[in-house]
């Protein structure tokens, strides 16, 4: 079922691309092609976390990366009813409604037999407990090994060595799975590609400071999560450069949408269908930056790629004491001249939600309106269209009053 869905998605994107060769279509084609490769019989499929695992390491091997969260959560935007049906299959097996809908959808997809094979299941402790737990559960069902890349909360030479050591162990596992020794030259090339993409990503971030904002805020949020899946491949840089080209073209042609209010988006953007974009468009609100779209890491050291990848993991805004996240938020508030900040709190995202008060207080110090918007990433049963409309329209009124 998922396979058919990706095939249709790729086909329609390819057809559309023939007519309008846009960056977003390039991205969709690449994403769906990667997901479809995982269903090929001879593929060596390594399950991972696209948005936080050092993908350069996987790019250095002949393996297909597959992320069950991203793979499943393309569905709620296209078919919310079907997604809920799949979630109920996990709920019927005892997975509580209090758990993240991303993971209920993934577990339900497994129970329905929608997933491809798994040769190795990797996850990271970066973001949430739920992802690593789901990974372990699925590994049990597949009878394959699950490895968690454990990222400590502190940055020190010991933690860098610890994470770097784990990455080297994972590299050995990847050698077994792919039946190829790690080629260091190839890894260095992947790191170079990643560094080039980092520069392009930084340029994109600079472009987003332009008023009015020249791109699409929801896509920006999406890209900040899934863009990392291409790290280590030339495609990542190509994608960012193409987006830059499109933005510059729009600016030159004067076809950028009008803008009254500029928003900094915090935490996640819902994968399911919502009325957020509609409300924003109607009220000329742009999401101009997302906290995860910031280049928070240094260039990876080609001579010492494991350490470089470890450092990036440890500098992630969701790792470490809250200051690591708040520093990033404050920097973006400084740089993007926003009229307000919105924290989207998906019900079960404990690590992000548990910081709402600290972020609220930090934003309040700058006298910038702040909204905690409760909702759900994928489960339409936990999303209220009218409540969202009421909250967002009230927030827009507040921003207007402050102008």
């Amino acid at each position, binding site marked *: 079922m998922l396979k058919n869905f990706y095939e249709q998605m790729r086909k329609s994107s390819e057809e559309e691309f023939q007519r309008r060769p846009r960056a977003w279509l390039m991205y969709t084609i690449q994403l769906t092609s990667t997901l479809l490769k995982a269903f090929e019989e001879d593929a060596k499929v390594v399950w991972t976390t696209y948005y936080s695992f050092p993908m350069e390491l996987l790019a250095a091997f002949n393996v297909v990366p597959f992320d069950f969260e991203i793979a499943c959560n393309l569905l709620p935007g296209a078919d919310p009813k079907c997604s809920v049906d799949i979630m109920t299959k996990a709920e019927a097996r005892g997975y509580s409604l209090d758990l993240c809908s991303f993971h209920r959808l993934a577990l339900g997809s497994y129970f329905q037999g929608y997933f491809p094979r798994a040769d190795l299941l990797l996850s990271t402790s970066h973001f949430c407990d739920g992802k690593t737990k789901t990974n*372990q559960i699925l590994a049990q069902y597949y009878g394959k090994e699950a490895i968690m890349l454990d990222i400590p909360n502190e940055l020190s030479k010991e933690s860098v060595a610890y994470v770097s050591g784990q990455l080297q162990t994972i590299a050995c596992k990847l050698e077994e799975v792919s039946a190829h020794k790690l080629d260091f030259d190839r890894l260095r090339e992947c790191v170079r590609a990643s560094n080039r993409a980092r520069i392009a990503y930084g340029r994109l971030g600079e472009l987003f400071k332009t008023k009015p904002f020249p791109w699409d805020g929801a896509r920006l949020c999406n890209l900040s999560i899934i863009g990392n899946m291409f790290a280590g491949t030339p495609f990542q840089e190509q994608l960012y450069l193409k987006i830059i080209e499109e933005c510059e073209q729009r600016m030159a042609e004067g076809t950028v949408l009008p803008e009254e209010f500029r928003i900094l988006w915090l935490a996640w953007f819902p994968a399911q269908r919502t009325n957020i974009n509609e409300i924003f468009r109607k009220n000329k609100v742009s999401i101009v930056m997302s906290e995860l779209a910031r280049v928070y890491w240094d260039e990876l050291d080609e001579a010492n790629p494991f350490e470089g990848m470890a450092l990036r993991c440890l500098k992630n805004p969701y790792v470490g004491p809250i200051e690591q996240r708040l520093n990033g938020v404050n920097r973006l508030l400084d740089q993007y001249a926003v009229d307000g900040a919105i924290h989207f709190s998906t019900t079960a995202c404990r690590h992000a939600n548990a910081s709402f008060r600290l972020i609220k207080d930090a934003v309040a110090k700058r006298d910038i309106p702040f909204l905690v918007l409760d909702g759900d990433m994928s489960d339409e049963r936990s999303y209220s269209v009218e409540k969202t409309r009421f909250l967002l329209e009230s927030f827009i009124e507040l921003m207007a009053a402050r102008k």
Partner: protein
Amino acid sequence: MKNARYRIGWLCSFVPEEIVMAAGLLPLRLSGQGEAATVADAYIYSNLCPYVRSILALGINGKANGLDGLVFVRSCDGMRRMYDLWRSYVGTRFTYMLEVPKNRDGTAMEYYASQLRKFASALEQEFGVKITTASLNQAVKTANQVRKLMQQIYKLQRGVPLPLPGSEVFQLGLEGMRMDKESFVAKLKKYYSKAKSQVKQRGGKGKVRVLISGNVVDRPELFNLIEAAGADVAAADLCTAMRYFDYPVEENSDDPYLALAQRYLGKLRCARITGLAEHFAELKELVKTYAVDGVVYTSVKFCDQHLYDAPYLMEKLKDDRIPVLFLENDYTWGNIGQLKTRVEAFVEMLDSGRR
């Protein structure tokens, strides 16, 4: 550390009290019991771990003021964010986040040992004390005495019929987490000697035997409920019970920090440590060792670590024909009335299975 000048609170059984004791400080487990968590709503979502919420409420209400320090662990998402909230809105003279790996291989052990050394240095710096290899080895011996005595008591509990009420053993253990270890050792010695004589006096087939497994339980309500339903609680695989007392630390080690790391990471597995299959194997071993008829698996609400594991573990237990009952609780056990019928039915089912 009966006469310790400073009191250091801790929240997770991965905090080696030995280091605190070696510094001449008094380690005390902080419980959020009796604290209405509603005051925490202004700081944290209501769908977050009620243990975390209760502790935060305790701090906000000024009821942790007697502590000179509080040690957090990266146990879970809720706890690491509580560390941030505590520093920002409560504050203690010494607020420390101890890094504990979630894996338990050699690299993890070494990293954990390095973090324990850092923790010791931080205590030394803050309280102007010195932790020596000798003082640490002495603290290890004292803590091991507690473990040894508690294990002896738990060993008695393998007997049929159950010699001691499970609720009593559980409460005894809780007490030990909140008092100095020397006094607790003295208390345990007396208790154990009395308990041994009771074993000889009892006979018969005994009642239905239950293992409680789960996370943080700070009150005896569940134990009382099971006992009132006519069953015995033979063992408790909880953060606040066996996972605190099991396995000794290697004594007189040249590297006591590594010895501590090995014991703490190697102890009975809690859900935060990777290895679901190993967790199930350990659970099964406990079922066998304590000859229990069934398992009550309990978790505080919104504990992702346990709520994700529960369906898989229950499925595996059932595959092995081990009856299991899953009970979610709100940490205060305010919902105990609602659980009564389910517990009674479970005990009745276990009882009929024996006949």
